[in-house]
């Protein structure tokens, strides 16, 4: 037993030490700045909570994250269903279609959206050619741009857990339900849908948490009104040179993520992997 423990420790040590030295320690040092404001130990948090600007930024972040989660869920559900059904070449094509964007730099993908969504870009030209609108629509540097970019980047994180959940559904359950006289709708509602919910919860947690921390896409595709928490943290550092405030805002973000993660583990069996069974 003792030898086993040493073995485990030795295997874990390199990754653990690296994480501790280059990630955890600097992070703790940075976050501790939040309590060093000259106005008092908790002055930064008071400022964050009292300012209508910062409150609005935080609310904004949660709203955007929730909307992105809802849209990705709506898009990913039918896609995951198809993925779980098809076989052979179609499956290969589709799974690569889902995975391929993950291998392209997020910066490249975001800049591509800038080209597509600009005033005289292909999307606006198509909209005008089809007669939907006479003038170019404002698709860039506002909420629309941010949502389009974030949904595109985060879609795979929703598709994969849903696909995992749908693949794991025993087809005999549906046959049994059919055999026992349930209609298509009832089988869907009472058998299939509940079994995909853990996958949905996994994907939603992923997408929501990643959305909260998104920086590049909102910074490039959003305007000043669609500012989110990470953008605010960067503004504290680069424009105001106020590192205690930046650290306090980071702690607020980290705390929100931690609470959500805890809540998620209650109904998601994280130890069995995000691909819920």
């Amino acid at each position, binding site marked *: 037993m003792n030898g086993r423990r040493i073995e485990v420790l030795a295997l874990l040590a390199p990754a653990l030490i690296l994480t501790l030295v280059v990630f955890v320690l600097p992070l703790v040092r940075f976050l501790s700045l939040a309590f060093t404001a000259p106005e008092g130990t908790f002055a930064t948090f008071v400022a964050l909570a009292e*300012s*209508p*600007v910062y409150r*609005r*930024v935080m609310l904004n972040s949660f709203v955007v994250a929730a909307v992105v989660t809802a849209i990705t869920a709506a898009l990913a559900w039918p896609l995951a269903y198809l993925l779980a059904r098809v076989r052979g070449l179609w499956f290969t094509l589709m799974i690569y279609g889902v995975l391929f964007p993950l291998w392209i730099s997020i910066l490249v993908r975001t800049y591509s959206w800038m080209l597509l969504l*600009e*005033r*005289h870009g292909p999307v606006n030209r198509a909209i005008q050619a089809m007669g939907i609108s006479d003038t170019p629509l*404002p698709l*860039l*540097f*506002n909420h629309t741009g941010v949502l389009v970019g974030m949904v595109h980047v985060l879609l795979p994180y929703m598709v994969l857990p849903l696909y995992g959940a749908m693949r794991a559904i025993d087809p005999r359950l549906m046959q049994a339900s059919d055999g026992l006289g349930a209609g298509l709708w009832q089988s869907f509602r009472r058998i299939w849908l509940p079994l995909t919910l853990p996958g949905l919860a996994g994907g939603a947690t992923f997408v929501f948490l990643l959305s909260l921390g998104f920086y590049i896409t909102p910074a490039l595709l959003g*305007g*000043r*009104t669609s*500012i989110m928490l990470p953008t605010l943290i960067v*503004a504290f*550092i*680069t*424009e*105001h*040179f106020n590192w205690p405030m930046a650290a306090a805002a980071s702690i607020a973000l980290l705390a929100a993520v931690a609470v959500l993660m805890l809540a998620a583990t209650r109904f998601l069996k994280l130890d069995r992997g995000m691909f819920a069974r």
Partner: protein
Amino acid sequence: MQRRSFMIGATALAAASGLIRPAHAQGRPFTFTSWGGALSDAERNAFIDPFAAMKGIEAINTSPTETAKTIAMVEAKKVEWDLVCEGGTVAFQGEQMGFLEVLDLSKIPNAAALPDAMKAPCGLVTSTGATIIAWSESAFPDGGPQSWAEFWDVARFPGPRGLYTEFTYNYEAALLAAGLKAEEIYPVTPEKIEMAFGKIREIKPHVTVWWGSGAQPPQLLSTGELAASSAWSGRMLAAKAEGAPVGFTFRDGVAWGNWWVIPKGSPYVDLAHEAINFALDVENQKKLLPLKTYGPVVSAATEGLSPEDSEILVMAPQNLEHMLLLNEKEGWGYTEATLGSWQQLMME
């Protein structure tokens, strides 16, 4: 013995991998940092590369300038930039916050040729430019707005606008648009700040881009994403020279200098002083002229120049007549006074 050589080896390895840095980074070449684009090109070709050649040293040119990074380096006592091209407000801010070296003017005799507005205890101007009105030729083929008042006139010049992401330049532009005369802009008062905010609220619904990087205005104007925008003069001159479908005017422009500062604790403080003095030498100032982006600051460098060549010289009296000289000390004042309220205004 073995242990000792192991220690030396380990130290060398750690130093090579960047974990430990010698207190005086003599292994690192003299490093100059600027904003990138046309300005970095001008400073590199006119000043830094000739200076390095003259001294027989290696000099690195990097970009972009990031004040927060400078502060972090100084606080961590690991200064990697020896000379930095900054906005003027930082020269005053750096003195107040203590992250810049106070310049020893006895080592920079050429600074005597500078006007007072181009000097600060922690910084000196080595070249000049302006924040000017620029437009897209596809939006206004017959010429765009010729003043900030016209820039604000969205009925006469319809289309999306771009303005700088911070209050800098916008304070001046808004007050000029509101009808104040150039000599009434300073000193900054709370009433004038309120007036500028009101004027910015007026145009805000038409501002689709609050640009933060100098590369944005020429790019967004040439694709037609913006109809008109404020922009840095050198970037517009460079874009125009490359054939971009953009137009601009220096009229009503807000003229400023590019300030050179030395982060506190640089191992090359003396060399940095020498570089500033070199850049302010009349002959070296003249090297800016053929580059046609940013102008000299030393007036002796511009004598006997043809009218078309003197367009870029924002300090030339005939140009300054139609422009406003940005007062950097006042600029730092209004920036500091509006840090929170500016962000609030942006989110309205």
